[in-house]
């Protein structure tokens, strides 16, 4: 992984030196061993802050929107899943292709940082990470640890469809094979088995905990409205009150707003401070769209129309 980090830095440096871009958005080592933080680099000297490894879970694509009006071009480091967000942002006309440079990194998977943190000494510092196929070896100042991917990776990585970025101007390192460590919709299918009452109880338990902090929306690369309905006062689509009923409307509304466009990056799930499994709502819709319309995962190709954003005269209108 050190080799990849080096190549990313070199690529970033070259782009900045040649003035192809004014800014590079990438991953930098965080204060904790198992976490990274977004870094924004505007000079060739700064590239040493860039890093790469199994702790780069963040999807940085949404930051591109912040720079859409800034002068100059922006380069961004993306994983396979993040690259779907880039395509979605392009298809939603939120960024323009000629203003961005995509540095794609084939991704061997991302570890759940909490699980790693639980096993590593708190004062340990990271020396190196090594991808051994089905496991990662994390070398630290206080010893080496091996983490099986099957047990330690984020769910979205266990079912990853695109380890290799689907859009990239530069690809760092070798392309990787698609490996499935789990059934993509197994968890959704489990939920589908529940009775109506049980389902309702399950979601009530989840939604009642929501703080309405909107972190899930803010991180989402398909939530790019100028003024989100949840921030509007007139009309007041949903009351600002935090209670089960309003929270439920919030979640269902958002699920439908991202339906057919959600790229299944899993960021909403990951950033939620209350561990609400928001992605399961989206995944139910992904599953239905696959079953009913054979829709590919949004963002996996350029120019896909979203399932709820298409008008076709050939639509059978069977329900009418």
């Amino acid at each position: 992984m050190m080799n990849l980090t080096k190549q990313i830095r070199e690529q970033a440096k070259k782009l900045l030196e040649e003035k192809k871009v004014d800014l590079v958005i990438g991953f930098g080592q965080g204060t904790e061993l198992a976490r990274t933080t977004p870094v924004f680099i505007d000079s060739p000297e700064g590239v040493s802050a860039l890093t790469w490894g199994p702790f780069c879970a963040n999807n940085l694509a949404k930051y591109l929107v912040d720079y859409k009006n800034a002068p100059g071009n922006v380069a961004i480091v993306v994983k396979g899943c993040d690259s779907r967000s880039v395509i979605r942002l392009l298809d939603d006309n939120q960024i323009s292709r000629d203003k961005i440079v995509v540095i794609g990194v084939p991704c061997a998977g991302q570890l759940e940082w909490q699980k790693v943190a639980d096993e590593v000494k708190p004062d340990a510092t990271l020396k190196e990470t090594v991808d051994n196929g089905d496991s990662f070896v994390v070398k630290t100042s206080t010893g080496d640890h091996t983490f099986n991917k099957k047990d330690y990776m984020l769910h979205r990585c266990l079912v990853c469809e695109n380890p290799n970025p689907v859009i990239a101007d530069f690809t760092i390192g070798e392309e990787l094979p698609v490996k499935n460590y789990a059934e993509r919709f197994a968890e959704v299918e489990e939920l589908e088995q529940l009775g109506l009452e049980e389902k309702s109880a399950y979601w009530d338990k989840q939604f009642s905990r929501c703080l309405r902090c909107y972190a899930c929306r803010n991180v989402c690369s398909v939530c790019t409205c100028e003024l989100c309905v949840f921030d509007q006062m007139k009309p007041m689509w949903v009351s600002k009150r935090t209670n089960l009923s309003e929270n439920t409307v919030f979640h269902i509304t958002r699920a439908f707003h991202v339906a057919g466009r959600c790229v299944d990056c899993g960021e909403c799930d990951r950033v939620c401070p209350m561990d609400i499994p928001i992605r399961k709502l989206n995944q139910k819709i992904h599953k239905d769209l696959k079953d009913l319309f054979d829709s590919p995962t949004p963002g996996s190709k350029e120019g896909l129309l979203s399932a709820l954003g298409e008008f076709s005269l050939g639509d059978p209108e069977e329900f009418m």
Partner: protein
Amino acid sequence: MAKRIGLFICWCGSNIGGVVDVPRVVEETKNYPGVAFATDYKYMCSEPGQNLIISKVKEHNLDRVVVASCTPMLHEPTFRKAIARAGLNPYMFDMANIREQCSWVHSNDKEAATQKAIALVKRALAKVSQVEPLFESSIPITKKALVVGAGIAGIQVALDIADSGHEVILLERESTIGGNMVKLDKTFPTMDCSACISTPKMVQAAQHPNITIMTYAELVDVQGYIGNFEITIKQKARYVDHTICTGCGLCTEKCPTKVLSSFELGMGKRKAIYIEFPQAVPNKPVIDPDNCRYLKNGKCGICKKLCPVGAVDFEQKDELIEEKVGAIVIATGYDLIKWEEIYGEYGYGRFKDVITGLQFERLVNASGPTNGLIQRPSDGKEPKTVVFIKCVGSRDEAKAKEYCSRACCMYTAKHAHQVIEKIEGGHAYIFYMDVRTPGKAYDEFYRRTVDEGAQYIRGRVSKIYQSGDKLVVMGADTLLGSAVHIEADLVVLATAMVPTEGSEKIAQLAGVNIDKDGFFIEAHPKLRPVETMTGGVFLAGACQGPKDIPDTVSQASGAAAKVAALLSNEEMATDPMICHIDEKMCSGCLVCKEVCPYKAISEKTITERIAGQPVERMVASVNTGLCQGCGNCTVACRAGAANLKGYTNLQLLSEVDALCR
């Protein structure tokens, strides 16, 4: 300024008042926030009722009005006009339907009906509290119409529009106008000769100063909207310059290439340079490039050498012609179903003497391939026993179409009559499911055929096979409950009418819908049968559904009347209840553009000041002429930037809130 709502609740005589407790509805709603005046009246829509509204608006300085009465379909325009006469903007109005939705459906539960009426009135009050004045604007109208398809439907439409003083382009993809009707021999129920009544109309169309006929041409693009369509027509190369050709016919006589004629449905021949039939309009030839020896391999060119005026032009190319029209009438007619691909029991088209009704028309037609002698295709012998099979492809949900093709019962009776009349010792057997003859003098016609000796057998045919020079038809007589075998000389299938090939493309170009069978969909099956959901696009003839000539012609005149009414205006008012995009809320994602069925949305660039800097960005923009107010975009727009005037998000949410309270 505080809102001043006037609330007027109607008894509709005992229609509403007999069920709904009207005084109680007034009592329970008159204190709703904003209501400045509330009353009830026996007939709100009557002259005194309307005058009541007008005087109260003035007396109480009302600024908006709710009428609770019947369906807005009926009287919304009435009340809008009334409040306009009182000096208010007509859109400062809403209606609650307490008749159809209350007293009529809940006539046996007065309490529930009253409760529901109260709720619906509150809903209307909530909505009217949020309405804003709307203003109609006007767009100019191009006083010219396009008629696509020149069968009897298209010709009739063109003539009627032209007679009312407007210009018409009559577009036909074949080399002559006339459609299917000119192929027919006699027409039921009066048995007048089809050509004798249709060719004069063709000539009339050709000579009408307001009609421009464009044959051998296709519609390739439609842009714009009602009153202002911009169309592109492809004039296919004819290889004969019609501006100089005199139609002498020397070329067609001398052309050495003979091919099967599609006009004769494969039962006759024509040349590579040809005129479809003697009365064709225009009566000038075209060259069929797939078969012309010169165009294929550069040899021959006899026609060019012979033509006394030098009209043959092998260099001619397809040409694109742009036109502007205010209205479009689709009259593309029908084809017969491809039965050969479906019906194995009738031999999949392997037996030469199993033909369609339309082929039979050519066989009895004096100008047809047999000069009107009924001779069967295989050996040219006169058939003595002719079997007719009805509903081939129609009313056959399992294998073909669910619908009835409507003309077949009658034309089969006509054909049976012709067999008996024209063939000495001729027998006609007709296998049928039902005989449907609803039409003026139709049943009489059918009875006469039965009296003449046509034998109607109720049942289906299970198999036809060749035995020597006979076709053995095996069927069932379900009335007698016995099997039937008939040794026939000729079998005639009454095949289903289906939309003509290419209808789908026309639908797409004109932005109108087709049904599951591919027929064009009218705006309302009963009340708006010749209009489509797209403003300025109308329908006539069999393209909307199977029909016979009388129905086709009436519908055509109906469509023409609609077009003439539209084109008689210099300008037209546009419905103000259309989409409005709040640019500051629009993120330019253009989902709205994708879902708009009327192609009314496009992108535009605006300049905003962000942090003191001018920033250009893209937003959606609505063409107010094209938008039909369908509301698709407003649903697709997540942020609610796209809004339907008269049904805004705010108004709808207020209504929902009022109903849920």
